[in-house]
C-alpha cells in the first residue's frame, strides 16, 4: 500500500471518529448517545489546549495529559498529529486537494512555495501563550512552584526555538524589558488575570465548536437524530464565518490554516523540527523535477532546503518523487534544512502583546465593577477570572446540554468571553434543568467543575452549603400581568422546580369596575344596573362582586345579571345599593434565599417577548462578591 493511502485512511478514520464523538455527545443511553464514549478525546489530544491550560490554571486537568503524549511523540516522529490525526487538518487537506486538482505542476509548485506569512502562526502562538501566562508572576509570588516552572520552561523553549545568530545581549535586554513590563502590568492591573484565548483559533476547539454548533444543528434539523427538536445557537453565523473562511482559503493555498494561522501547528512545528525521524532527501542532487514541491501540503520545500518545522508529514513528497530520492529516516535531509524564519523580535512582540492583553482588556472593568449580570454561567462554573483561565470555548457543554439553554457568548460580552457558555433562558426548550449536571460532567478543562447532583441540589453532605445558584430571578412589576395589568397568571410560581418554591404569592384585590347598582334578587340571580357587562366575561372564577367589605364570587354573568356564591359575611344586596367588581390577584414574589436562578420561570413566562420575570447573575454561588443576601438576616 502506498504510504499516502495509509495517511488518507488514518485521516479518514480520525475524522469519522471525531464526527462520531460529536454525534454521540447526546444525553441518553442508546448506542449513539453519551454512554461512556470519550467525546473529549480530540480536545485532550491537542497539546496547545493542554499547554495553555497549564500555563493559565497551573494544572493539567484530567484527560488533558493526552497532550503531553502527543508532544512527546512529536519529538520522536514529527508533526504526525497535523498530517495523520487532526480532523481539521483532514478537512483542509481535502479542500486543498480539490483546489489544486488538475492544476499544472508549475502552478502547484508556486502555491506550495514557502512564504514569509508562514511565520504568522508562530506569532499567533506566542500571543496565546502570552495571554495564558499573563499572571504567572503573581502566582509565582504566591509560591506556586509548578506554575512558575512551567512558565520558565515555556519561555526557555520559545527563546531556544527562536535563537539565531548573535546579538544575544540585546535580545536578553528585550526579554528582560518585556518580563519587567509583564510583572508590573499583572501585579498592577486590578483584574489582570490570564485568559485562555487560544481556544479562538486552537484547531480542535475551533472545529469542535463549528461542527457542534453549526454543522450538526443544520444536518440534524430534518433528521432529528441528535436532538428531538431543531437546535438554535446564537451568533452561529460568526462561528460559521470563521470556520467557512478557514476551509475555503484552502482553495487558494492548500492547508492555508495549517500553514499560516494554526497555533497548534506552530507549537508542533517547533517541537517537531528536531524530531528523530524526519522527511528528507537521500541525496542532495536529484533530477530537480519539483514533483515533491508540487505535492508538499506544508510548503516545506522538500526539493531544496527543507523546513522541518513546516512539514506536516503528509508524505506526498515520498509518493511524488520519481527517483525514490525522498525518505523518512533518522537523518537530516541531504538537501539541507532551514530553521523557521521566526524573527526573535517579532515573536517576543507577539508574546509581549499576549502578556499585556488580559491586563489591558480587563481595564474595561467587566471582571470587576462593570460585570455583566446577563453573563449567567452553567452550574459548577468557577468564578469568572478562574473560568476564563480554563474555558476552551470548545462548545462541548452547549452541545451536550439537553435543553439547549447554553449558548455561545457573542461579541457583546467582550473578547475575553467570546464563545464561552452563557445561559439564554429564552432560546432553550427549558431553563437549566434541576436534575441535570451534563455540562459539568463533559467539560474537558473543568471550567465547569465536575459536580454531583447532590452538590447541585444541596443535598446530603452538601445540605449545609445549600444548592448551587446560577443567579436570581427578578419580577419586572412593570410587565408582570398580575402586577401591571390586573390579570391573574402566576405561571412562574407553578413552574418553579425547587421545593419549597422560591416564588411565592400574595393575594391582592383590585377594584376593576365601579358604579354598579343592585336591582332585584330572584332565585340566586341578581340584576344590576349602571353599566352593561360583557356576558360571561366575569365568570372565570377570579372576579368578585363587592359590597362594602364583603365579597361574593361571580359564577356567571349576563349584561345586567349576576349569579354569585357568597361567603358567610355576604348578604343579598338591597335594591339601590352601590356595588363594584374586584379581581382576585396572586402576585408573585421571589425569595432570593431559595431561588437557584435556573430560569425555568423566565422560560415559561407568558409575556413572550421580554419576559416579566428574568434571571440575572446576582446571587450566583460562584461569585461571593455578587451575593444578594445578608447572612443571618431575614425571617427565613
Amino acid at each position: 500500500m502506498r504510504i499516502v493511502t495509509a495517511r488518507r485512511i488514518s485521516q479518514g478514520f480520525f475524522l469519522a471518529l471525531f464526527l462520531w464523538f460529536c454525534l454521540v455527545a447526546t444525553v441518553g443511553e442508546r448506542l449513539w448517545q453519551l454512554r461512556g464514549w470519550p467525546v473529549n478525546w480530540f480536545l485532550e489530544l491537542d497539546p496547545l489546549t493542554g499547554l495553555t491550560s497549564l500555563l493559565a490554571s497551573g494544572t493539567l486537568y484530567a484527560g488533558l495529559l493526552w497532550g503531553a503524549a502527543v508532544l512527546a511523540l512529536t519529538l520522536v516522529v514529527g508533526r504526525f498529529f497535523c498530517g495523520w490525526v487532526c480532523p481539521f487538518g483532514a478537512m483542509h487537506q481535502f479542500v486543498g486537494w480539490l483546489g489544486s486538482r488538475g492544476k499544472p505542476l508549475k502552478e502547484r509548485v508556486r502555491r506550495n512555495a514557502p512564504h514569509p506569512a508562514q511565520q504568522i502562526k508562530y506569532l499567533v502562538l506566542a500571543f496565546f501563550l502570552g495571554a495564558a501566562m499573563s499572571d504567572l508572576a503573581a502566582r509565582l509570588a504566591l509560591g506556586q512552584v509548578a506554575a512558575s516552572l512551567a512558565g520558565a520552561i515555556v519561555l526557555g523553549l520559545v527563546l531556544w526555538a527562536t535563537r539565531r545568530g548573535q546579538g544575544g545581549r540585546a535580545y536578553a535586554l528585550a526579554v528582560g524589558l518585556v518580563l519587567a513590563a509583564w510583572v508590573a502590568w499583572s501585579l498592577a492591573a486590578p483584574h489582570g488575570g490570564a485568559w485562555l484565548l487560544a481556544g479562538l483559533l486552537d484547531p480542535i476547539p475551533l472545529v469542535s465548536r463549528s461542527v457542534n454548533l453549526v454543522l450538526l444543528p443544520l444536518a440534524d434539523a430534518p433528521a432529528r437524530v441528535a436532538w428531538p427538536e431543531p437546535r438554535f445557537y446564537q451568533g452561529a453565523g460568526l462561528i460559521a464565518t470563521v470556520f467557512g473562511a478557514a476551509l475555503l482559503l484552502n482553495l487558494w493555498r492548500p492547508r492555508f490554516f495549517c500553514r499560516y494561522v494554526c497555533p497548534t501547528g506552530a507549537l508542533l512545528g517547533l517541537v517537531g523540527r528536531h524530531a528523530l525521524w524526519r522527511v528528507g532527501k537521500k541525496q542532495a542532487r536529484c533530477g530537480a523535477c519539483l514533483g515533491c514541491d508540487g505535492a508538499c501540503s506544508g510548503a516545506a520545500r522538500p526539493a531544496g532546503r527543507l523546513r522541518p518545522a513546516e512539514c506536516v508529514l503528509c508524505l506526498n513528497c515520498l509518493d511524488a518523487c520519481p527517483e525514490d530520492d525522498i525518505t523518512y529516516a533518522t537523518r537530516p535531509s541531504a538537501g539541507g534544512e532551514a530553521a523557521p524564519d521566526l524573527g526573535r523580535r517579532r515573536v517576543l512582540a507577539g508574546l509581549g502583546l499576549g502578556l499585556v492583553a488580559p491586563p489591558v482588556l480587563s481595564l474595561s472593568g467587566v471582571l470587576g465593577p462593570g460585570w455583566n449580570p446577563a453573563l449567567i454561567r452553567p452550574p459548577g462554573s468557577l468564578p469568572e477570572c478562574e473560568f476564563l483561565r480554563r474555558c476552551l470555548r470548545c462548545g462541548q457543554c452547549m452541545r451536550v446540554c439537553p435543553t439547549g439553554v447554553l449558548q455561545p457568548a457573542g461579541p457583546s460580552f467582550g473578547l475575553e468571553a467570546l464563545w464561552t457558555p452563557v445561559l439564554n433562558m429564552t432560546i432553550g426548550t427549558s431553563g437549566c434543568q434541576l436534575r441535570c449536571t451534563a455540562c459539568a460532567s463533559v467539560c474537558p478543562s473543568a471550567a465547569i467543575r465536575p459536580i454531583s447532583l447532590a452538590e447541585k441540589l444541596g443535598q446530603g453532605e452538601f445540605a449545609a452549603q445549600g444548592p448551587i445558584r446560577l443567579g436570581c430571578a427578578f419580577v419586572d412589576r412593570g410587565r408582570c400581568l398580575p402586577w401591571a395589568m390586573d390579570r391573574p397568571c402566576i405561571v412562574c410560581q407553578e413552574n418553579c422546580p425547587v421545593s419549597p418554591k422560591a416564588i411565592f404569592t400574595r393575594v391582592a384585590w383590585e377594584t376593576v369596575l365601579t358604579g354598579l347598582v343592585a336591582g332585584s334578587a330572584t332565585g340566586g340571580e341578581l340584576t344590576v344596573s349602571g353599566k352593561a357587562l360583557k356576558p360571561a366575561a366575569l365568570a372565570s372564577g377570579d372576579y368578585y362582586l363587592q359590597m362594602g367589605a364583603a365579597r361574593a364570587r361571580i359564577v356567571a354573568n349576563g349584561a345586567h345579571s349576576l349569579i354569585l356564591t357568597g361567603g358567610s359575611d355576604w348578604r343579598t344586596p338591597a335594591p339601590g345599593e352601590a356595588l363594584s367588581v374586584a379581581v382576585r390577584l396572586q402576585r408573585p414574589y421571589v425569595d432570593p434565599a431559595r431561588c437557584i436562578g435556573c430560569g425555568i420561570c423566565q422560560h415559561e413566562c407568558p409575556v413572550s417577548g421580554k419576559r416579566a420575570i428574568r434571571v440575572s447573575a446576582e446571587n450566583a454561588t460562584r461569585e461571593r462578591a455578587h451575593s444578594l443576601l445578608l447572612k443571618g438576616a431575614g425571617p427565613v
Partner: protein
Amino acid sequence: MSRETDQERRRFLLRAGKAGLGVAAIGALGWWAHDTQGPSANIGQAANVKLPSFAVKGTDKRLAVVKSSHRVPALRAGLEALGGMGAFVGAGHKVVIKVNAAFASPPALGATSNPELVAELVRLCRGAGAKQVIVTDNPINDPASCFELSGIGPAAREAGAQVVLPHPGAFAPYSLPGGRLIRDWPLMYGPLAGADRLIGLAPVKDHHRSQASVTMKNWYGLLGGRRNVFHQDINGIISELGQMVTPSLVIADGVATLAHNGPTGGSLEDLRPTDTLILGTDHVAVDSLAVGLLGLKPAKVPWLGLAARAGAGTTDYESLNPTRVELG
C-alpha cells in the same frame, strides 16, 4: 435566390422561433404567477383540524374508585369494575395514552404519571388487542428529558408502546366549537390522527392557580404554542379543555397525592398517601371525586362548575353510582 440567403433566412426563422418561445414562456410564467390581491391577513394559516369524540358507545357514566396503596393491582381491579379493558379497547385499535410528563423530575416525586401505571396500562391495551399504543405529551420542561427522567419513556417502550415527543409537524390549528379561548390554537394533533381511543392518565396534584390539577388539566399537554397566556383565565381554559376532549377513559392516580408545592413538587415531603385510584369515562366526575383527596369540595373549584355547566360531565359523581373497591 442564392443558397446562402436561403440558409440565412432559415437561421433567422429558427432564431425568431426560439425568441418567440422565450417570450411566450416569460409571458406565461408571469401570467401564471400574477397576483392582483396581495397576501391576506391570515397568511400561512392552515385549515383547522377536527377532534372527534373518543367515547366508547355504551360506557358512559361508568365510574370506579379503588382504595389501595398499590397502583398496578388497583388499575386491574378498577378496570374490572368498569367492565374490563375489553369494554374500551378492541382488536386492531390505535390507542393514545395522554400521560402527564410535564416535568423532568423522577417518578418518586409524583409530579408526573407513574411509569409502572403507564406500563401496565399499555400492557392491558395490548392485551385487549390494540395494534398500536402511543404514549404522548407536550411537556413543560425539555420534552426528551421529561420522558426519560420521569421514567415514562423507558417504561412505555418496554411495555410495547410508541413514545411520541412533540415536534413542529405534530401541531395543527384547532378551534373549539363555541369556544372562547381555544381559537386557531396549535393542537398536538399528530398522534391523535386516526386514533380509535384516547385515554388520559394523570396524577392528582395541588395547583396554586387552579387549586387542583387532575385529568382535565392534563389535556393542557395537547396544546402547543405559548399556552401559558391562558392562565389569565385558568378556570375557563380547563373548562374548555374538558369540552375539547371526550375521552374513552380517564384515570386519576391518587395513590399518592401531591398535596403541596404543586404542580412541580420537588420533595417527598410534598406527597401524602391517599391510596385512591379513580377511573371513569366522565372526566368532570372523576376530577370532582379526586379534588376531595386535596381536601376540596367540587363546588369550591370553579373549573368543575364551568365544565359541568358547559356539558362536559357532572360534578355530582354519586349520581353515576360509582363502584367502590377496597384492596386493603
